[in-house]
């Protein structure tokens, strides 16, 4: 009798299984390809998107942003606000209430001690935490009880959602990382390659810069998720090859960041095996103008404020002419297709922050650019290049190596040649350009060129930290080991004042006004030349269900919900 019912039950399960991936692991195996391979699974030690996103399937933050940029509780019961009492009235503390019953993948309970430990881990000054900015102004993190954590800030924090929110600030397990504090952090290979987590998957094998294999976390909080029993996260190759493996050969189910010629992508999507998904976030492909002198003859003072101002880019007329000579719509169409749109702002999203004050540049106007330069006294010389007082408008324009960027460079070079500006193009391998090696002359921080181009963005929806990038203190120079994000070497006390004002303002509309003003100041003073508001472009196979592209957090944020159609 018992035997029989078991058999019937098994038969029923067999019959039902293909119809709906009801239970954990029913959907089998899923393959994800990131053409940049993950090198570590600890986002506190690496800021690379590939590392943050691969680890987001294993370790999780307390709250996340959803696809619309709204904050959603993840490991907590609700988002603390002033209204619900989670954020103190004076905006100096925030209290998170952890959902009960969450277990680590090793079966131990997830508690407030882990959260406190994570804060200590990242804030240890010898540890070199990459996400330290998330913890700025934090003075204390304490466990009120097993499931309650209070974060205290040194000053009123209108936006207290820095720590523990979003894929870049997940919680790591205290028991596992206890011996990895400070200087020892990088040496804990085993922990960094296989952290215990609360996420839907856990690591079974990690090969640095190659491949990660994972399996469903048996202790995941939703007993029916994830649908996939195993997962492979493969790295290597290039964007086109990754797109091909999803869209044309269907070997992989999900491919990330397909910055390739839109014509090729469209053709690949035509094979009918996969779907290209894109969504706009905060990413802007922009040119960083160098306001200091990059002349190699300056030696150590090259591209520093001490080295003196740039011979011609400090002339506002030149920067304006350079900007309006560019046809941004063509750049967007050629390089990004539907996933790009022309923009004149460095802060194009979320919508409340988007300024319209700078839209002059949306339309290319070569004649006007020429007129501006004529007026400013830059006369066309016999070689077709404008010059004034012996200074020629000759620009070294660098970016990372990427087919779309090189196309953009070629187009810009042509337009600039039409206004009498000579351009020399240079491209540098992305791993060197963004690599941060202090002795390499080719990093984007050093900016040993007149103009450099790349995309920058911020996760989440609050622009405060992002807009702080262009304050005087952020200028990279030998004194701070070339650390800093103010590549244009822009320094304006008025801007710094706005920045300070922003961090002290709580009202959302007022914050928007200040952020827009900062954006407009940067644009009108020509510290950078924004080109294209870039969406994220990814692709998933037609058999993969549940993909929701999220540009405010990790793309793999809802991997637990993925299913096999």
């Amino acid at each position, binding site marked *: 009798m018992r035997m029989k019912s078991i058999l019937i039950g098994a038969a029923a399960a067999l019959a039902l299984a293909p119809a709906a991936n009801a239970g954990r692991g029913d959907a089998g195996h899923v393959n994800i390809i990131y053409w940049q391979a993950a090198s570590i699974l600890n986002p506190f030690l690496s800021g690379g998107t590939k590392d943050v996103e691969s680890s987001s399937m294993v370790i999780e933050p307390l709250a996340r942003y959803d696809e619309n940029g709204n904050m959603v509780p993840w490991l907590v019961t609700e988002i603390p606000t002033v209204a619900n009492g989670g954020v103190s009235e004076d905006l100096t503390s925030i209290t998170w209430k952890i959902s009960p019953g969450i277990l680590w993948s090793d079966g131990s309970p997830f508690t407030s001690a882990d959260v406190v430990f994570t804060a200590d881990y990242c804030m240890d000054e010898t540890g070199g935490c990459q996400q330290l900015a998330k913890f700025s102004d934090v003075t204390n993190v304490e466990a009120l009880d097993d499931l309650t954590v209070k974060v205290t800030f040194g000053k009123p924090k209108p936006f207290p959602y820095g720590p523990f929110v979003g894929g870049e600030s997940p919680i790591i397990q205290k028991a596992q990382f206890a011996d990895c504090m400070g200087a020892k952090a990088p040496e804990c290979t085993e922990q960094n390659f296989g952290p215990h987590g609360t996420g839907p998957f856990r690591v079974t094998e990690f090969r640095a810069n190659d491949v990660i294999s994972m399996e469903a976390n048996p202790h995941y909080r939703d007993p029916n998720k994830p649908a996939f029993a195993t997962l492979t996260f493969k790295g290597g190759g290039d964007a*086109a090859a990754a797109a091909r493996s999803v869209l044309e050969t269907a070997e992989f189910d999900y491919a990330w960041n397909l910055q*390739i*010629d839109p*014509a*090729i992508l469209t*053709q690949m999507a035509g094979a009918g095996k996969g779907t290209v998904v894109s969504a706009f976030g905060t990413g802007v492909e922009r040119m960083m103008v160098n306001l200091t002198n990059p002349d*190699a003859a300056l030696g150590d003072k090259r591209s520093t404020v001490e080295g003196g101002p740039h011979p011609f880019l400090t002339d506002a007329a030149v920067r304006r002419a350079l900007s309006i000579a560019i046809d941004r719509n*063509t750049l967007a169409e*050629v390089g990004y297709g539907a996933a790009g749109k022309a923009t004149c702002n460095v802060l194009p999203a979320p919508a409340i922050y988007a300024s319209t004050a700078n839209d002059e540049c949306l339309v290319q106007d070569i004649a006007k650019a020429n007129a501006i330069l004529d007026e400013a006294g830059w006369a066309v010389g016999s070689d077709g290049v404008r010059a004034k007082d012996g200074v020629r408008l000759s620009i070294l324009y660098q970016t*990372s*190596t990427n*087919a779309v960027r*090189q*196309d953009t*460079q*070629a*187009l810009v*070079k*042509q337009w600039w040649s039409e206004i009498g500006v000579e351009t*020399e*193009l*240079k*491209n*540098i*391998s992305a791993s*060197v350009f963004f690599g941060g090696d202090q002795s*390499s*002359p*080719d990093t984007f921080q050093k900016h040993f060129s007149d103009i450099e181009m790349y995309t920058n963005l911020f996760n989440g929806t609050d622009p405060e930290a992002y807009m702080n990038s262009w304050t005087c203190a952020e200028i990279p120079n030998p004194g701070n080991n070339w650390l800093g994000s103010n590549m244009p070497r822009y320094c304006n006390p008025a801007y710094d004042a706005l920045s300070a004002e922003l961090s002290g303002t709580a009202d959302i509309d007022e914050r928007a006004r200040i952020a827009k003003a900062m954006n407009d100041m940067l644009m009108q003073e020509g510290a950078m030349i924004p080109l294209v508001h870039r969406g994220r472009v990814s692709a998933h196979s037609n058999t993969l269900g549940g993909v929701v592209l999220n540009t405010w957090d990790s793309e793999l944020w809802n991997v637990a919900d993925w299913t096999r159609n």
Partner: protein
Amino acid sequence: MTDVTSDIRPARSQWADVWDQFKTHRGAVMGMGFFVFVCLLVAIGPYLWTLDPNFIDIRAKNQSPSMLHPLGTDQLGRDTFSQVLAGGRVSLLVGVVAMALSLLLGTFIGVLAGYFKRLDGALMRLTDLFLALPLLPLLLVMIMLFRDTLRAAFGPETGIFLLIVFAIGITSWMNTARIVRGDVLALKEQEFVLAAQSIGTPPYRMIMRHIIPNVMSPIMVSATLGIANAIITESALSFLGLGFPSDFPTWGRLLFDSTNFMTLNPERVIWPGLAISLTVLSVNYMGDGLRDALDPRIRGR
């Protein structure tokens, strides 16, 4: 009927003989013809086909061959024909100069090592050393150290050209040296060399008259491979972002850029690929012909 006496030939220089023999090799003559044709084409072509290879006409992007663009256009609407012409100048120059440099070095070191026993050990360890240094780090270090200096001295294109040619030249001579040394060692045992030595032929003449002509065939093979190798290494450097500026077309770069458009515009990949292959093929046939022509056993036949 020809008069037999007319066949009594006056003594001629060796090179005239070599040339006579070379002329009889159909493949070699065709190869040489093609090579000269390609050289002339890329040298003169840009004056006849005056479209700027870097001129962008975005409305005319990804076009198939037409009267206006005989080989079509790329993804930015640049004319492929003028790009192939411009690219050929650089690729051929890089290929030939780098190959010549590596052959000269390789033959020089190989002959010295094989001929002078005293130098053998030291030179072969030097060769080992160069072989052991992986090419890429060496190139990267060299390029990082010298790029800015050369760029300042010669401008971005010439500076990089000198650097690339030099870098490829001094990192690819080792195989030639090893092979030449081996051949010279074997040759030294042969009687004609012993005979020449015994009549007191000085080493310089010995090497030029007796050794070099006899190691010509491996050198010729190395030369053929060398040109292809240089052209491809240049494209690999561009691939790593260390080569010429991206708006500076070379055959390797054109091929690389068009690879992703393989299914979209298949004709685009053909031109640079064909240009490289045919050039290498023609150099190979020239090498074959030259080897035959230099071989006295065949010449006598």
